[in-house]
């Protein structure tokens, strides 16, 4: 079964960024990770939800120690294509939904809702913490798409607030 959690001894980290909507922006962000040997486990961005000034929200999931995660966040902030970058804790209240497409024969744990798409595929949704626990557990589903995390609630004073 595919390991859906980070294939790493390091903890999962999540960075929320505001990214300029222009060609090359994602590439410049990706280089910050690849240049340091860090693998992006999931990248969820949306161009359909731009701020008034043309910045998109994006979430990046990766595995790294706290120091490296902090450095990567600081480097991202210095890119011309990135307006803000914030390292989020796994229990950050703004992370309220994780969604993925999975193949699972077992029953999902409490906190995860599953909607069948086909004979063996399903759309699973739940809190990031519950999703992470499921993916890390013995009954982990087989991932059929990238893990997706939605940032659905903005803190009024946070850098990601509109």
């Amino acid at each position: 079964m595919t390991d859906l959690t980070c294939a790493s001894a390091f903890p999962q980290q999540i960075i929320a960024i505001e990214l300029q909507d222009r060609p090359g922006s994602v590439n410049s962000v990706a280089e910050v990770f690849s240049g340091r040997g860090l693998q992006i486990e999931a990248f969820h961005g949306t161009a359909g939800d731009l701020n008034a000034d043309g910045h998109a929200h994006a979430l990046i999931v990766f595995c790294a120690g706290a120091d490296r995660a902090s450095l990567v966040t600081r480097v991202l902030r210095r890119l011309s294509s990135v307006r803000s970058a914030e390292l989020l804790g796994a229990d950050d209240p703004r992370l309220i939904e994780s969604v993925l497409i999975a193949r699972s024969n077992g029953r999902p744990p409490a906190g995860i809702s599953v909607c069948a798409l086909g004979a063996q595929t399903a759309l699973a949704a739940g809190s990031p913490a519950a999703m992470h626990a499921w993916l890390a557990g013995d009954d982990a589903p087989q991932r059929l798409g990238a893990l997706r995390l939605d940032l659905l609630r903005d803190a009024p004073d946070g850098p990601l607030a509109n």
Partner: protein
Amino acid sequence: MDISVIGASGGCGREVVTRLVSGGVLGRRELLQLVGGNPQSSRPSYLHGLRADLQDAYAENIPEIDVTDDADEIVGDIVVMAAGATFPTDSAKAGGLQSRDDLARANHALFEHFAAAVARNRKGNPPVVIVLSNPVELGVHVFCRHLPREYVLGMGAFSDSQRFRWEIASQLGVVRQRVHASMAGEHGLGMVPLWSTVRIHGLQPDELAATIARLRDGTVSADFPARLAAEHAALMAQMMADPIDGPVRALARVARLPPDLRVALKPFPVHYSQAKTISATATATVELVTALCEGRAVEICAQYQHRGELGIHGPIGNRLILEGAVRRVVPGDDLSDEELALLQACGVRCRSKIREWSHD
């Protein structure tokens, strides 16, 4: 690799930045960070203008260029410390502000400010810090109080060694690439020429010994500090007596001296000619940065915080093995007893000055 240049608006900092970009040292997606060294600068827009100018000039292969005045935003894997006061270039004022004590007092707080900020944010991922600002030994000492010493280098001995190689090469009529030599000790009037390290490609041992003897013209290492002090005093007197043509005459005077004295003395008329030693320093810095970026294991000569290696304590120039960071000090078994004694004495002197400068 990402590179931060502190003091990028200064003469040397700007030259380093320009060469890093024009030389293609950084890739398109790597970050070159221009850090203002003076938050109270009278030219707060300068670095933004420099960035735009560099982008216009080198658009074909330009790295990501960031500008900041905030020391807490320094993110480079390599940090070049080029900020701080330097001696005025007017030879008529050469006797005024101009001691290294004055320079130390002026730059100590700046070293402390940036060293503390880098350490505060990079405890687990220290960058390699290359100190260009003077007194370079004080800079190395201050940064080493905040960061592991393996990550802190001073450019003084690196530049001096390049000059030493050139002075030998030019006298022999060969290219510098054929000459290997190290100039260690304290940058300025405390440098220690390591003649034992001189190698000239193509010369057999007996030819090399005869060539070195001819170059040294009967001088010995133990006399070097006294000869240097005497020549320096005469040189400065000559320059101050004639602010217009003094530097040119001083350069002619220096040209008649042995190679080791030329290395120590030539930067003075170059500086007071108002050309300054910017090109040599920047070229040497970019060479060192390139070696770090390429991850090569190299032997260099640079200021390093010694803790008893070769009997030396203190941040003086010496030969080092560099592999990303300093791996070790080169064993001194090829040095003469005189050279070793000079290095050890230099370390003692340097520590004493630093205690005085930093009130440690």
